[in-house]
C-alpha cells in the first residue's frame, strides 16, 4: 500500500495521542481511586456501587438510630436504678422502724425521710433526655409520666426501631413497669410505708416488706428487660456493622481501582506512550532525512 509522508505523520500523531489518552486514563483511575466513576464506564458495576452506597447510607442511619436507642435505654436503666435504690433504702427504713424499740416520734421522722425518698424516686422516674422526651412515658414522652401522687399518666406503648432489612427491635421501656399493671404499684408501696410510719403502725410496716420485696424484684426485672433490649440492640448493631463492611467491599469491588492493578496499568500505559513517542521521533527523523 502506498503511504505518504502526511499519512505517516497522521498515523504517528494519532498513535501518540491514543497512548497519551490511555496513560491519562490510567493515571486518573489511580489518582481518584475509581475505575468506574460514571455509568458509561460500566453500567452494571456503577449500578452495583450506587446500590451499595445507598444501602450504606441507610445502614449508617440505622447505626445512629441504634446508638440513640441504646443511650435512651441506658437512661431508662439509670432511672429504674434510681427507683431501685430508693426501694432498697425504704426497705431498710421499714425493717428498722418495724422494730418495737422506736416510738411514734421516731417513726414520724422516718415517714418524712421515706416521703423525701419517694420524691427522689419520682424525680428519677420522670427523667428526660436532652431533647425533652420523658424516657419512661411510653409514647406520651412529651410530659412527665408520673404525677406528684405517683400515679402513672404515660402509656404502655413501646417504640420499635428498624435495625436491619425487615427487622425491628423494641427500643424503649414504658413506666408501666413500675405500676400495678406489672405486679405492684411501686410508688403506692412506698406511700404505704410512709403512711404506716406516720401512723406509728409497726405491724403494717412489717407487712409492707412483702410488697417492697415484690416492688424491688419488679424493678430488677424491668432493668433486666432493659438490659436484654440493650444487648439485642448491640447484637443488631454488630450484624449491621458487618453488613456495612460487606457493602463497602461490594462498592469497592465494583467501582474502586485496585492500587496494584492500577499502578501496573499506569506503568503499561506509560511504557506504551514512551514507545509510541520513540517511534514517532524515528519516523519524523526518517522523513527529515
Amino acid at each position, binding site marked *: *500500500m*502506498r*503511504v*505518504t*509522508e*502526511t*499519512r505517516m505523520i*497522521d498515523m504517528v500523531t*494519532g498513535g501518540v495521542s491514543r497512548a497519551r489518552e490511555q496513560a491519562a486514563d490510567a493515571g486518573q483511575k489511580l489518582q481518584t481511586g475509581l475505575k468506574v*466513576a*460514571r*455509568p*458509561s*464506564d460500566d*453500567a452494571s458495576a*456503577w*449500578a452495583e456501587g*450506587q*446500590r451499595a*452506597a*445507598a*444501602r450504606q*447510607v*441507610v445502614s*449508617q*442511619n*440505622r447505626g*445512629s*438510630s*441504634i446508638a*440513640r*436507642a441504646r443511650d*435512651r435505654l441506658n437512661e431508662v436503666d439509670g432511672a429504674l436504678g434510681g427507683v431501685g435504690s430508693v426501694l432498697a433504702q425504704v426497705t431498710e427504713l421499714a425493717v428498722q422502724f418495724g422494730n418495737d424499740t422506736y416510738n411514734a416520734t421516731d417513726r414520724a421522722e422516718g415517714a418524712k425521710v421515706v416521703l423525701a425518698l419517694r420524691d427522689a424516686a419520682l424525680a428519677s422516674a420522670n427523667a428526660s*433526655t436532652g*431533647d*425533652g*422526651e420523658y424516657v419512661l*412515658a*411510653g*409514647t*406520651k*414522652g*412529651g410530659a412527665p409520666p408520673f404525677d406528684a401522687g405517683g400515679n402513672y399518666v404515660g*402509656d404502655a*406503648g413501646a*417504640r*420499635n*426501631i*428498624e435495625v436491619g*432489612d*425487615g427487622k*425491628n427491635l423494641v*427500643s424503649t421501656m414504658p413506666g408501666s413497669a413500675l405500676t400495678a399493671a406489672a405486679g405492684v404499684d411501686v410508688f403506692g408501696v412506698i406511700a404505704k410505708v410512709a403512711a404506716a410510719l406516720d401512723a406509728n403502725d409497726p405491724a403494717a410496716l412489717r407487712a409492707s416488706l412483702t410488697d417492697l420485696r415484690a416492688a424491688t424484684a419488679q424493678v430488677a426485672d424491668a432493668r433486666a428487660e432493659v438490659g436484654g433490649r440493650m444487648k439485642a440492640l448491640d447484637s443488631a448493631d454488630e450484624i449491621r456493622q458487618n453488613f456495612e463492611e460487606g457493602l463497602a467491599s461490594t462498592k469497592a469491588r465494583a467501582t474502586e481501582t485496585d492500587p496494584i492493578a492500577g499502578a501496573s496499568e499506569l506503568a503499561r500505559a506509560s511504557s506504551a506512550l514512551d514507545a509510541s513517542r520513540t517511534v514517532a521521533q524515528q519516523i519524523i527523523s526518517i522523513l527529515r532525512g
Partner: protein
Amino acid sequence: MPGLLGLLDLGAGALAAQNAGIAVSGRNTANVNTEGYARESVTLNSELAAPTIGGVTASGVSRSGSELLAARERLVDSDRGQSGSLSAALLSLESDLTPSQGSVVDAIAALFGGILDLASAPFDASLRQGVVNAATQAGMSFAAAAAAIARARSDADARLTDQTKQASNLAAQIAAANRALAGPNPDPTLLDQRDLAARKLSAITGGQARVDTDGKMRFVLSGGTVLVDGDRAAALTATNDAAYGNHVRIDVVDGGHAVDVTRTLGGGGMGGDLAFRDGQAVQAAQSLDQLAYDFATQVNAVHRANAGQDGQTGRSLFVPPAQVAGAAAAMAVDPTVAADPRKVAVAGPGAAAGDNAGALALAALKDKNLAGGGTRSFIDEAIRSIGAVGSAAATAKSNLAVAVARTDTLASVRDSLSGVSQDEEMAKLAQFQHAHEAAAKFVGVVNDLLDNLMTTL
C-alpha cells in the same frame, strides 16, 4: 525527414511538456498539507511520427480521485457525525446527572436514612429538621436533574442552529462548485473542494451526495429532501416551534418553499443532536418525572395517613404533583411542613407524639417496589433511570470508536490513492528536470546546427 526548424518545434514541445510536469509536481508539493487535495499527474502523449518525427505533448492533468471511495467516506462521516454528537451530548448529561454529591439516588437514600434516624427520637427537633432538610434536598436533586435535562435539550437546539448555518454554507459551496465545473477549463481542485464540502455536509446532516452523469453533484438528505441540485442550493433553517415543545424545527427552504425535515434527519451531527433531544433526553426526562411523581405520591400517601407531633393527620410531605409531566422540576417540600418540622408525620394516626409508627411506615417505602410500574424500589429506579443515560452514552461512544476506526481505514485508502507523497514528487521533479535539461540540450544542438548551416550558406 523533418527539417531543422521542425526539430526545433519538437524540442520546444518537449520543453513545454516537461514544464507541465514540473508545474504539476510543484502544485502537488505546494498542496501537500491542503485538506481534501487529491494529487494530480500530467498526461504526456507521444505525437505520431508520420509523416515526420513525432514529439511529445502534455495532453492534460488528471486527478487521482475515486467517486466510490468518496461516497464511502461520506457515509462513514455521517455515522461519525451522528455518534460523535450523540455521545458528547449523552456524556455531558450523564455528568450532570451523576454529581459527586447530591444525586437523586443519594437524596432518596438520605431521606429514608433521616426518617429512620428520627424514628428513634420523635421529640428531637434537630432530627425533625434533618428530615425536612433531606426532603428539601431530594426535591432540589430532582429539580436539578430535570433542569440538567432541559438545559441539555436547549444546548442541542443551539448546536442544531449552528449546524444549519454551516450546512447552508456548505450546500451553497457545492452548488457554486457545480456551476464552476460546468464552465470552460474548470480547475480540478474544484472537485477536491466539492468533495470536501460534501463530506463535511454529510457529517453534519447525514445526507448523501452522488455525482450525476452531467458531472454535477446532487445532495439529498436522509428523508429524501434535496438540498443541492446542480447549481441550486436550498438552505437549512432552525426555528423555535411550539409543536416541538418550543424546541427548534429544522426546515429545508428553497425559495419560498419550506419542508420540515426535523423528524427525517437520520444521521450526521444534526441527526445525533435530534436523536438526543427528541429521544434519549425525552426518555430520561419522562423516567425522572415518573419517578418523582411516584415518589412524592407514595410518600405523601403514607405521610397523610400518619400524624405530626400535634396529632394531626392529612398533611403531605411534598407538594402533591398535579401530573407526571414536570413532576421532577416542581418537586418541593410542602410549605406547611417546611415551616414547622413538628408536622412531619412520625406518629401513627391517633397515637401519642412519642409513637413512631408513621416514621417506620415511611421508611418501609424504601424497600417496596413502588416505582417503575411496580417493578422496582425508588432507589433502584433512580439508578436504572440514570444508568440508562450512561448506557446510551457508552453505546454512542463505542459506535464513535467504530466510526473513527472506519474513517481511519478509509483515510489510509484515500491516501494510498490520492495523497501527495513528497518523495514521489521530488523524484518526479528530478525526472522532469532531467528531461527538461535534455530537451534544452536538444534545442541547443539543433540551434548549433542551424548556426553552422547559416554560416556555411
